């Protein structure tokens, strides 16, 4: 740009087209975009607002127009009730159209001006549009888009003219090269002129610079305008969407009305036919009855006349004949007079009170202004993880054409066990298409169904969907947690009677309060026990959640795990009856009492011969360390054994156990390191008070240490293909104290 601007001779000619280029006229020429220039927009708004205000006093009258619709219809129905229905139908539809039209377009116009006002007074808006007559107030249902475009083309045309006007002044006459720009007068002048005439005292700058300034200014404005154009384009497309939506909605409403009115008219016609037929039948029946009576009446009359004549004849007869006939006559007459002469009118001539029943029509009429009763809603299957232990979130959907005022959501627990016994049902009314149902029982199936309702009535019930509440939180069995430096076994109670899908274990390092512990999760645990790998010498908070289709339960109460040393429990099931385990679970006592007469019967779990108990070590192939406090005069055995070590044999007597045994006899200490019944010959000069035991699966070793002196006593090399457990035995009365959770001393790492 700068380069071109520097070429002065061409400047005059080339400037206008160059500048034109910046306006992106192609944008404005596009008919597909409904652009509204800011100036146009504000002007329009002003124009619209004015009639709106003037129409304010007429508000009451306008508001009545809506009510008129209802009354008009009622009137028409009454008016045409006994007249020709078809005519009515046609007329009705025709009349209806403009009425709808009034309410259809105003929102559209309002949106363009001021969306916020739309809701408040759309009726006035409608009036306002008609009043302003801007060219789109009269748009019919067809071709309104074209009209809209024309309207925009109109505004657009005007704007581009304005821009042209703005540009033209720069297009100076080019006879003489102007080279400076008078800032004061805002016109370009020739350098020579500058020194005299009216520009003498004025500030001038080189024309190039002036040109650049002007261009820069223009560019800035261009940028703003472009932004505005984009905004307006977006706005216009939004308007189009609204336009279409409104059109669709009203179209649907039209159809709705049409079908309703047709239904009513059909009903009326049918009623008319029925009535006419009934009337005709009644008429015929009455006339027939009357005619019959008339006929029989005539017959009676004839008989009477004949009798009169006969009597008269008899009166003129001879005495003898008279007497004879008179007797016969008197008989006949007596008989005749005995027969009743019916002079009651069999059919009432007056018209019976015929009440016309229009209740069903009225109902139909009423439903025109409400809507159809909704169809059955569709209840959704349960969304994963949407439930809690006491609540589920039930969702359903309606058919888009339905208008629904509220839903009736019903549910009852699903119980397989007692189908005969009806479970209590619960029903609630909700406005939304979802509902969080609370106060439910955890991990329980509930059957849900929903009906929709509006003024017109109640929909059929939806299908029934089964939702499941999340389980209740499990309970960690803290006392049974086993751990070593690299792992822990956590077990818990389900907390739910029904089975759950799985459990999730969450762990947070508790050591660093500032670090706002990152929570790790172990998911998909099928049983109530899990082994988690951990970092050595840390403290962890452990939580467990139970999961089912409905979602996860709340967290269990936390349990704390320290991965310092190993932590195990003594297994009471293995405990020889002569041993007692202290309350804290870590002191093994063989009391001084006299030994019972006989040993317990051999078993697979419980030690029966050697007076021993087994610990329950975490099954993890790492390193484990624990310590045992002993008395140096005590006879004891400590070590490890497989779970299935023969319980009726001494520890170390077989190839399933590895042990250190101490015996004290005649003031001599004997230390044996027993496996398969053999021991190396090892003498120890300082008798340990506390024995450290290191079990190292990785290196297949079991080592014993004197804790107080750090002295290494012995190391077994043992093939541990399966997991072993600590074991402790007391060959004489006394006690052993087991120390868990002891950090592994450094020196043991050498073995």
């Amino acid at each position, binding site marked *: 740009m700068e380069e071109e601007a520097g070429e002065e001779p061409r400047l005059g000619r080339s400037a206008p087209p160059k500048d034109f280029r910046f306006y992106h006229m192609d944008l404005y020429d596009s008919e597909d975009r409904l652009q509204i220039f800011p100036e146009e927009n504000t002007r329009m708004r002003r124009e619209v607002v004015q009639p709106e205000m003037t129409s304010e006093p007429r508000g009451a009258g306008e508001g009545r127009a809506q009510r008129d619709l209802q009354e008009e219809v009622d009137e028409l129905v009454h008016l045409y009730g006994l007249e020709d229905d078809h005519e009515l139908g046609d007329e009705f539809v025709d009349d209806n159209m403009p009425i709808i039209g009034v309410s259809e377009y105003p929102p559209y116009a309002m949106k363009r001006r001021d969306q916020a006002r739309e809701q408040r007074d759309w009726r006035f808006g409608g009036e306002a549009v008609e009043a302003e007559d801007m060219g789109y107030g009269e748009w019919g249902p067809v071709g309104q888009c074209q009209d809209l475009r024309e309207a925009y083309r109109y505004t657009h045309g005007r704007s581009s003219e304005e821009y042209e006007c703005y540009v033209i002044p720069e297009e100076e006459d080019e006879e003489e090269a102007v080279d400076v720009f008078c800032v004061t007068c805002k016109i370009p002048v020739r350098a020579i002129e500058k020194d005299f005439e009216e520009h003498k005292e004025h500030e001038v700058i080189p024309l190039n610079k002036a040109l650049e300034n002007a261009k820069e200014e223009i560019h800035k404005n261009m940028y703003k305008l472009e932004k505005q154009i984009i905004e307006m384009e977006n706005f216009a497309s939004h308007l189009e969407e609204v336009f279409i939506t409104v059109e669709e909605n009203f179209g649907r409403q039209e159809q709705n009305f049409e079908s309703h009115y047709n239904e009513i008219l059909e009903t009326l016609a049918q009623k008319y036919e029925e009535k006419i037929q009934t009337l005709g039948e009644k008429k015929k029946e009455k006339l027939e009855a009357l005619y019959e009576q008339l006929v029989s009446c005539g017959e009676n009359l004839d008989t009477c006349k004949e009798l009169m004549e006969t009597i008269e004849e008899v009166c003129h007869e001879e005495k003898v004949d008279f007497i004879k006939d008179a007797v016969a006559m008197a008989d006949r007459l007596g008989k005749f007079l005995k027969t009743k002469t019916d002079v009651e009118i069999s059919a009432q001539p007056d018209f019976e009170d015929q009440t016309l029943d229009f209740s069903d029509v009225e109902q139909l009429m009423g439903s025109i202004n409400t809507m159809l009763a909704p169809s059955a809603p569709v209840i959704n299957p349960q969304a994963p993880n949407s439930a809690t232990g006491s609540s589920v979130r039930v969702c359903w959907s309606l058919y888009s054409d339905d208008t629904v005022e509220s839903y009736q959501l019903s549910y009852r627990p699903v119980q397989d066990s007692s189908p005969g016994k009806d479970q209590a049902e619960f029903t609630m009314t909700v406005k939304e298409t979802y509902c969080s149902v609370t106060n439910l029982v955890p991990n329980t199936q509930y059957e849900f169904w929903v009906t929709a309702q509006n003024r017109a009535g109640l929909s059929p019930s939806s299908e029934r969907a089964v939702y499941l509440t999340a389980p209740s939180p499990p309970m960690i069995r803290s006392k049974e947690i086993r751990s070593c430096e690299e792992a822990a076994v956590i077990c818990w109670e389900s907390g739910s009677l029904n089975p759950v899908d799985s459990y999730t274990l969450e762990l947070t390092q508790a050591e660093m309060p500032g670090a706002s512990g990152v929570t790790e999760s172990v998911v998909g645990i099928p049983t109530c026990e899990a082994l988690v790998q951990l970092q050595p010498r840390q403290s962890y908070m452990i939580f467990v959640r139970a999961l089912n289709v409905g979602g996860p339960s709340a967290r269990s109460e936390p349990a704390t795990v320290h991965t310092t040393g190993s932590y195990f429990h003594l297994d009471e099931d293995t405990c020889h009856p002569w041993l007692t385990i202290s309350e804290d679970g870590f002191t093994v006592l063989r009391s001084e009492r006299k030994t019972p007469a006989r040993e317990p019967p051999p078993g697979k779990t419980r030690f029966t011969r050697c007076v021993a108990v087994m610990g329950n070590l975490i099954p993890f192939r790492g390193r484990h360390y624990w310590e045992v406090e002993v008395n140096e005069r005590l006879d004891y055995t400590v070590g490890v054994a497989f779970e299935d070590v023969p319980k009726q044999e001494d520890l170390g007597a077989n190839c399933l156990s590895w042990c250190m045994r101490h015996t004290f006899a005649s003031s001599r200490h004997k230390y044996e390191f027993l496996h398969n019944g053999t021991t*190396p010959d*090892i*003498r*120890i*000069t*300082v008798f340990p008070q506390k024995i450290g035991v290191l079990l190292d699966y990785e290196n297949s070793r079991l080592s014993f240490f004197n804790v107080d002196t750090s002295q*290494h006593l012995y190391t077994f090399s043992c093939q541990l293909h399966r997991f072993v457990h600590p074991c402790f035995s007391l060959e004489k009365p006394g006690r052993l104290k087991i120390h868990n959770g002891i950090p592994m001393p450094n*020196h043991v790492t050498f*073995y």
Partner: protein
Amino acid sequence: MALKQVSSNKCFGGLQKVFEHDSVELNCKMKFAVYLPPQAETGKCPAVYWLSGLTCTEQNFISKSGYHQAASEHGLVVIAPDTSPRGCSIKGEDESWDFGTGAGFYVDATEEPWKTNYRMYSYVTEELPQLINANFPVDPQRMSIFGHSMGGHGALICALKNPGKYKSVSAFAPICNPVLCPWGKKAFSGYLGTDQSKWKPYDATHLVKSYPGSQLDILIDQGKDDQFLSDGQLLPDNFIAACTEKKIPVVFRLQEGYDHSYYFISTFIADHIRHHAKYLNA
């Protein structure tokens, strides 16, 4: 104190070297072996002194025990001196295998003609460590000592006579109570004179009785089929009894079927190296 390198061989990533130097204590040229583990290239390492048994030179241990792998793993400098002064032309020094050359017994002789040269105790506890500390990348604060037979005796007395100087001590079939065994009686009367009270400061079992109780972890391996055990040369039971009484921690392992040879040593050498490493690398 100039060192002369005699040999150098790469072994388990480190270097097995032999040096010769003029010993002040012993008044003769002495050879010693030193193993520099790979870790010695980058930093100071602990030093372990190995004292060999009767008739041995610095060569036996380095060529027969197979200690290199363990020393390399634990990063220990292992120093193996000779067992006596050599070439001192003392009358009778080569007459028997259990006295004189190759049988210095790690004592400082007080009797003529031995007292000028036979100062092995001072040599292994003073001169040699100073030489090593000055010439090799070792940490003077971390040293241990072990040995075999006569060297086991030497290791025990060095440790027991210098509480705290050695972090740990161990021995293979040590002569535990030399004042009561034929080897000890012969050597001590030769080097120290007939006054048996002067022998006791070089007797491990006696030293234990006066040991002040500084922490010392003693590991002893003993072959059960060791001929010298049954001959009453080693007498470990006396030492164990003394240690038990004084509560000095000993683990004594009587190894079934093993004899007095380097085969026995090589079987358990790794345990001993680890025993020292545990204290030196703690």
